[in-house]
């Protein structure tokens, strides 16, 4: 099994420990002048989201995780699982609501997302950084009020609600930043 040596250690490295996939989120090189070089690492479990502290000596290695990142189109939701399709192989993958997490708020049929496979099984997905969603319900807009600091909840086509400026109206298309969950702007199409 392929592995990474301490000299390959860097943030973003995907490794396997005790059968679980982890991503290295921190790696600090420490070395007393005359002593052993140590790599103090923080690793996030990609299945459970827990964080593990590990220390490695220079020359140690960690098994590489068989992680593949693909583009997958969201097809539909079938009771619990969300169904996606690999845009290249057309293979279908299912993710549970726990795996999709908050991203359900942005999922529109046909949307192409990033998907992570571990040993060929889907474990997580990321929506595009910006998505455009149609407002299905909100309180009537206040004509002429262009202030963006006053917000109101707007329910969009996915069923999620986002705080939007008061001038937004039903039927508007709004752009949301999926990394922050914040309203960006109104768009024409």
């Amino acid at each position: 099994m392929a592995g990474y040596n301490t000299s390959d250690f860097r943030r973003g490295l995907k490794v396997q420990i005790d059968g679980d996939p982890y991503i290295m989120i921190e790696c600090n090189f420490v070395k007393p002048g005359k002593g052993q070089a140590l790599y103090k690492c923080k690793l996030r479990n990609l299945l459970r989201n827990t964080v593990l502290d590990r220390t490695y000596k220079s020359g140690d290695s960690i098994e590489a995780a068989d992680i593949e990142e693909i583009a997958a189109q969201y097809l539909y939701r079938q009771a619990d699982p969300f169904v996606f399709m690999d845009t290249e192989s057309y293979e279908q993958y299912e993710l549970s609501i726990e795996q999709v997490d908050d991203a359900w708020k942005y999922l529109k049929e046909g949307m192409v997302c990033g998907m992570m496979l571990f040993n060929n099984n889907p474990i997580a997905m990321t929506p595009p950084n910006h998505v455009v969603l149609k407002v299905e319900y909100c309180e009537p807009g206040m004509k002429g009020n262009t202030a963006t600091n006053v917000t109101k909840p707007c329910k969009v086509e996915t069923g999620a609600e986002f705080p939007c400026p008061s001038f937004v109206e039903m039927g508007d298309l709004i752009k949301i930043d999926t990394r922050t969950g914040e309203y960006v702007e109104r768009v024409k199409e």
Partner: protein
Amino acid sequence: MTHTQHNNFRPTASRQNLQLRARLLQRLREFFDQRGFLEVETPLLSADTVVDRHLDPFCVEFDNRRMWLQTSPEFAMKRLLADGAEAIYQVTRSFRLGEQGPLHNPEFTIVEWYRTDDDMDAGMQLTGDLCEAMLHCGPAERLSYRDAFEQYVGIDPHTADVGALISKVEELGIARPDSLSADDRDGWLDLLLVDRVQPHLGMERPTLLYDYPAGQAALARVRSDDPPVAERFELCVSGIELANGFHELLETDELLKRNKNINAQRAADGKPTLPEQSRLLAAMHAGLPASVGVALGFDRLVMLAAGAKSLSEVMAFPFDRA
């Protein structure tokens, strides 16, 4: 990829920090000049290299020969002492393979000085004075390695057996390398030092940590106390190791013995062995005068003076951009 790598020609340090760096270098030379030290220059590329378990030199091969970029100018400077020099200093580049992080760059600027007839007290005094002159940080306090461990770890580092050190690491919840062997006493001490001791040192004023475990003597002499301790000290400022000093080992036989042991450890660690014979041995054989020698990381000193968090903020072109 190649494009982005070659794209960024700019320095990582601000112009302000580079100006500070130049001023500190000037101040450093004034400090040594005022005390009668002679500035010297010695080869960066040498047929000899320091033999240390945890220092890996860059090897340069050409014309069927093998030479090393120096991990410190120690050997050459001691050859000058054996030839009659009494107080010398050098500001030069040193190279250490694989040492890279916010506080490490494989190529760095080292300040190294030697003064004959100094003992531990005089060596620590001079180191503290230099630190004060450079950082305006007040006089350094002294703390023995044993007292530091008793205070911050609750263990006597000279008498505790490895089992006790391992239990302590576990009790404190320190993440431990699986590969750290149960007989590597100094490895466990290093783990405790890095995690629990060093972060407390030099917080209010610089700390001189002294009298190291005999197993960590490197090129320091070992004083036959009970238990014996290495006459070695380190200067820490704001939890960062800044300098390392030795009351220098003088005996040829002892150095040869240490070199052999270190090479055996290096081989066991899966590292290339290093030449046990060197011109330093010849110099020691001819007679090396008693001295204290100290090496200081100049980039870290500038970093502390600048209030920076990483060496890249005070080096024009760190390794990734070299």
